[in-house]
């Protein structure tokens, strides 16, 4: 079992667990108070609750230096003591690396109200200021405060933000970008988020926003890399088109634009294809180029009572990290059986891959409530879990997800191929070979032609969300061109 996942990372595209506020709260609060009673902490946690802090290289049960944390659920007041934030506020910046998500999602969903297309709106301005200050204070890299193009389709978002069209989303993002550029301290490096719901919109968004990464236009304040949102994050055709455009537009330069992040990417196959891309760009253009991608699956799965139990990387098949409902039974409240053993014994799945979190963990450490026990609010609930049970299994799921990503890359390097990245219908077409061909040429038209030649193949590489597969070809672009709402 690998405990030092930082060391195991090699030259793979970097997965960033999108740490939940719930999880970070346990780690942060325990650093200054006994938030979790000592007696509640499993015996195998050698450094108490801090054992869950994978950013801590000396005390974490396992180590992994990279992650994403969102301003959307952080305490943004940097002048106020906030123990729940201390996993990030007090982390050692020399041994960890955090990417800050900006909260564009919260704007899109209407959680952060304000008239975002009005640069003088006090509500929006307050949020703009606090997000920037928070990023500069605590994050190594951060996303600019983009307004996703899909807000125009979100009734709640429209109502709360005053943004009803793609055009207005662009305008509002522009306002935020100008503000960030003017007021950033330089402590945090910023990724220019690319949005758009189809190729046409994505191209348009790029054309409007690329200037913010251009050192010629903004020598001292330009943004420092890219973040792929909207259709850009799930449509490999668009990803490759954009990378070629960036390369030949001089916006993928060593030391200037070294990072590209993919928002909300959970497909295991993408862990390997993003490594292919990273390697090809490093080899042929920018040796510093680093691809990162995040998802919150380990945390969301736990919140739904699911636990990761297995990684499946059979050659020429679908690659998955398998998650199933965990044990949750009050009769296990005194059961000292190893968690993994109890999980299999209770028929949850035929096997359970232990993590450094579950290695030595007992069933009773998770199933804490016995029949008749009252929970924190003085009631007898249905579940045997307390809130710390969730934190424990989140820690396990984080290790499992990172390990799955790294295992996928190891298997890929050893010649096993996920079905999605090879097509043997007529000829043998391998994703990595096409990517190599695209980036090995110094001629943009040749690179573009290769991408276009495989237009259909790209549709077999399914992304996490958005228009994927055959749905990448749709009527949305032309509908927008031909019709107007009245």
């Amino acid at each position, binding site marked *: 079992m690998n405990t030092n996942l930082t060391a195991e990372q090699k030259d793979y595209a970097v997965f960033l667990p999108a740490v939940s506020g719930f999880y970070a709260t346990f780690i942060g609060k325990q650093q200054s108070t006994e938030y979790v009673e000592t007696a509640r902490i499993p015996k195998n946690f050698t450094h108490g609750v801090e054992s869950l802090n994978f950013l801590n290289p000396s005390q974490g049960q396992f180590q992994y230096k990279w992650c994403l944390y969102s301003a959307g659920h952080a305490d943004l007041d940097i002048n106020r003591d906030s123990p729940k934030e201390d996993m990030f506020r007090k982390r050692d910046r020399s041994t960890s690396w955090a990417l800050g998500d900006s909260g564009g999602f919260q704007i899109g969903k209407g959680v952060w109200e304000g008239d975002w297309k009005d640069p003088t709106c006090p509500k929006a301005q307050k949020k703009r200021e606090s997000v920037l200050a928070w990023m500069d204070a605590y994050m190594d890299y951060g996303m600019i405060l983009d307004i996703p193009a899909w807000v125009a389709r979100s009734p709640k978002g429209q109502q709360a933000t005053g943004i009803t069209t793609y055009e207005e989303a662009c305008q509002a993002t522009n306002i935020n970008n100008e503000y960030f550029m003017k007021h950033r301290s330089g402590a945090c490096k910023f990724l220019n988020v690319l949005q758009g719901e*189809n*190729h*046409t919109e994505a191209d348009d968004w790029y054309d409007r926003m690329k200037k913010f990464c251009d050192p010629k236009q903004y020598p001292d304040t330009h943004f420092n890399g890219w973040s792929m949102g909207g259709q850009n994050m799930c*449509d490999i*055709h*668009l990803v490759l088109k954009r990378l070629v455009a960036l390369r030949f537009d001089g916006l993928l330069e060593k030391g200037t634009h070294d990072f590209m992040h993919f928002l909300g990417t959970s497909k295991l196959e993408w862990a390997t294809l993003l490594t292919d891309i990273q390697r090809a760009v490093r080899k042929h253009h920018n040796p510093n180029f680093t691809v990162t991608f995040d998802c919150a699956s380990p945390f969301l799965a736990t919140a739904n009572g699911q636990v990761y139990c297995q990684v499946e990387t059979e050659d020429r098949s679908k690659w998955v990290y398998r998650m199933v409902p965990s044990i949750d039974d009050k009769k296990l409240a005194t059961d000292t059986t190893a968690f993994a053993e109890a999980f299999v014994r209770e028929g949850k799945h035929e096997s359970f891959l232990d993590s450094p979190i579950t290695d030595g963990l007992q069933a009773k450490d998770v199933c804490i409530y016995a029949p008749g026990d009252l929970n924190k609010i003085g009631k007898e609930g249905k579940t045997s879990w307390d809130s710390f049970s969730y934190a424990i299994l989140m820690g396990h799921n984080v290790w499992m997800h990172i390990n799955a990503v790294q295992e996928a890359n190891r298997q890929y390097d050893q010649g096993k191929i996920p079905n999605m990245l090879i097509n043997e*219908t*007529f000829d043998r077409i391998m994703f990595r070979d096409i990517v190599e061909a695209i980036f090995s040429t110094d001629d943009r038209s040749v690179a573009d032609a290769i991408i276009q*030649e*495989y*237009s*259909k*193949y790209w549709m077999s590489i399914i992304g996490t969300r958005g228009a994927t597969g*055959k749905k*990448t*070809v*749709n*009527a*949305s*672009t*032309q*509908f927008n*061109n*031909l*019709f*107007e*709402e*009245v």
Partner: protein
Amino acid sequence: MKDTLQDIVKHTHSLGFIDLVKIVGDDKSTTIDAMAEDRSVVVKSELKSPVPEFAGTFGMPNLGKLDILLKLPVYKDNAEITVNTQERNGDTVPVGLHFENDSKDFKNDYRFMNAEIVNEKLKSVQFRGVNWHVTIKPTMPDVQRLNFQAQANAEENVFTVSTDGDALKFKFGDASSHAGEFTFATGITGKLDKTWAWPVAQVTQILKLIETNACEMSFSDDGALQITLDSGMASYQYILPAQSK
């Protein structure tokens, strides 16, 4: 009334991708608007003889249910279908259809969607207009040949259209896949410079109605396809935005 309703259902719901239509009517006209959920087809129609009872704006949702009611044998002969109305804000508005069989012992009510909700769910869209570069009147055999290719290339969601001299050619697939091509029409005037893609399922479903309709197809280099069907009771315009990534 029954014939009109059957005509509307046949030209919308039976296509398989429309389950809601918006009716806007007064004493001079009755118009029908609909749209596929994925915006692949926009339908605009006007009844040749307005239905006076369809005064105002309302939606016909769950068209599958209306289709069933219209096909029930019990309502086949001498059934009475009337429009229910209510007073709302001083206006008399249609709120549904009442079905009653000949012997008055079998009844159904089909509810309309009110104007506010249908306007939210089915926003009115205005076609900006394009130049139509090629217009043809397809025949049953043409449509049959299209269906043959669609069958043979069932994995393809779209086909492309191009002109070659006076021939209009439809193509399925490309060099990277199985492929098929055929001449859909000859003797055309006009020329297409751009090879747009069109949705196979939607086009073939609409063209199935050619059996009972006069049909005209117009293609534009601006990425629009219009199929016009004249059922005798109404003229239905189906405007399809081209498919692209």
